[in-house]
């Protein structure tokens, strides 16, 4: 019996996809660079005042200044610490509740639409409640961000566990595995990619909550710094911080996306 390499039809299209993927990355970079250039020239040519819109060169200078005097790094540290605490809590709460809603079918079916509705609702508007509950402390931020982040984790954990195909569980039973063994050796690995997807979403939403709350309450971190810079009319610096925050989100997205792909690659 021959053991030839798999389906030759996949070979050329794999190459095409490789090229395509790089083509679009280059195109994206190209467009981005062109926009940056346009931005820079429109200021230097005087079409727009540099006091209204800081050029990219100005942003870079301001970023360096902020890093050197420690403001950016200090704020970043605060925000990331709060984010880590919130995400940690969100994962613990989210995965536990998601698991419970998976085990208990009735509760799962009952609460899933509720969770969906809460998630789609303007949840950040609840922030004054947290202010009153916890006062102007970091606990308020952590609480809000944890709730915000745990909802996608709950929903995705439950769905991930439910989506494991019955056949895989039967394979486990046919090998006389105990229910615990089946859970850890079959269900969890099978559900992992979708669960991670939920954690990724939870992370992004927690970050959203943290920075927004920081900005609104001037408590600390990137949000507070932005608010302060804005208040002091330090325009280039506030633009720089906005850019830095977008880059942070992008970085988080990119890293978690890479992890998600590598979990799924083996599938």
């Amino acid at each position, binding site marked *: 019996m021959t053991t030839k390499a798999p389906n030759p039809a996949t070979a050329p299209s794999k190459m095409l996809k490789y090229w*395509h993927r790089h083509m679009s990355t280059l195109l994206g970079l190209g467009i981005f660079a062109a926009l940056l250039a346009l931005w820079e020239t429109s200021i230097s040519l005087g079409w727009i005042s540099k006091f209204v819109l800081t050029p990219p060169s100005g942003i870079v200078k301001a970023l360096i200044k902020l890093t050197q005097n420690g403001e950016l790094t200090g704020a970043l540290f605060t925000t990331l610490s709060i984010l880590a605490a919130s995400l940690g809590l969100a994962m613990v709460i989210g995965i536990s509740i998601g698991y419970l809603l998976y085990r208990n079918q009735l509760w799962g079916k009952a609460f899933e639409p509720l969770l969906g509705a809460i998630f789609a609702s303007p949840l950040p508007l*609840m922030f004054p409640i947290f202010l009153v509950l916890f006062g102007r402390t970091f606990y308020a931020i952590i609480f809000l961000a944890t709730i915000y982040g745990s909802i996608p984790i709950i929903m995705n954990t439950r769905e991930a566990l439910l989506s494991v195909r019955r056949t895989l569980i039967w394979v486990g039973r046919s090998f006389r595995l105990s229910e615990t063994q089946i859970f850890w050796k079959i269900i969890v690995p099978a559900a992992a990619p979708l669960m991670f997807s939920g954690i990724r979403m939870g992370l992004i939403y927690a970050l959203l909550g943290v920075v927004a709350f920081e900005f609104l309450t001037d408590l600390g971190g990137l949000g507070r710094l932005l608010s302060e810079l804005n208040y002091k009319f330090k325009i280039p610096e506030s633009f720089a911080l*906005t850019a830095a925050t977008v880059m942070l989100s992008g970085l988080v997205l990119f890293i978690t996306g890479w992890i998600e792909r590598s979990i799924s690659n083996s599938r």
Partner: protein
Amino acid sequence: MLNTPTRVRAFALFAIWLIWEVNAQIAWLVPEVFTPTSKILVGLVEISTSKVFYEHLFFTILSTGVGFLIAVVAGTIIGIALGAFKIFGRALNPYIAAFASSPKIIFLPVVMSFAGWGTETKITMAFIGAIFPILLSAYAGMLTINQVHIRVAKSFNIKWYDLVRKVYLPSLRHPLLVGFRLGFGASLVSVVLTEAKFGESGLGFLAMQYYGLYAIGKMFSVLVILFALAIIANFLLDRFATRVPH
């Protein structure tokens, strides 16, 4: 007895309300927050009979509505364009995603630098809040359209506007609706948070005023109204989308 999902849900909601109310009445845990339902209702009545409230309500709805509508048009068009010219869609997707997952509030200083402190800023913030969910939903929807339909239509030398009207839009109905609902919620949040931070008008500003005066009951009432707004808008969007023929 509690054997269907609906009953469990209803019971859970009732239980939460019961705990809230009991706690409010016996004033055990953080009594300032847990205002009795009766006080909230009274607050609601008081507010809805004050002219000032309606002025604030108007400002919030105006900014949100205008920003949202502009985002609907722009987001749908751009989303469809990125989906139709897939190479651009794939190229720009990472950048759009980075912006989409940033907290929109960080753009406020930038916007204020351009637009000052007034309504234009709020409309722009509403636009920024709504554009990403709408754009991404439209784009994602475009990616799921069966390519065969498109190729068949093109083989008949279809004009681009007919292609959009007769092939794209019908398939996009559902994803667009989801995008609009998420988008409206996001734009409402952007506007209210802007009002809370820098406003002199609008429901966000009003809520912060009540917070400052420690009139928690009235603050809650404002929040209840905001949530009610979101629910109504959701409902209307749902209705509107199922009526529109194309």
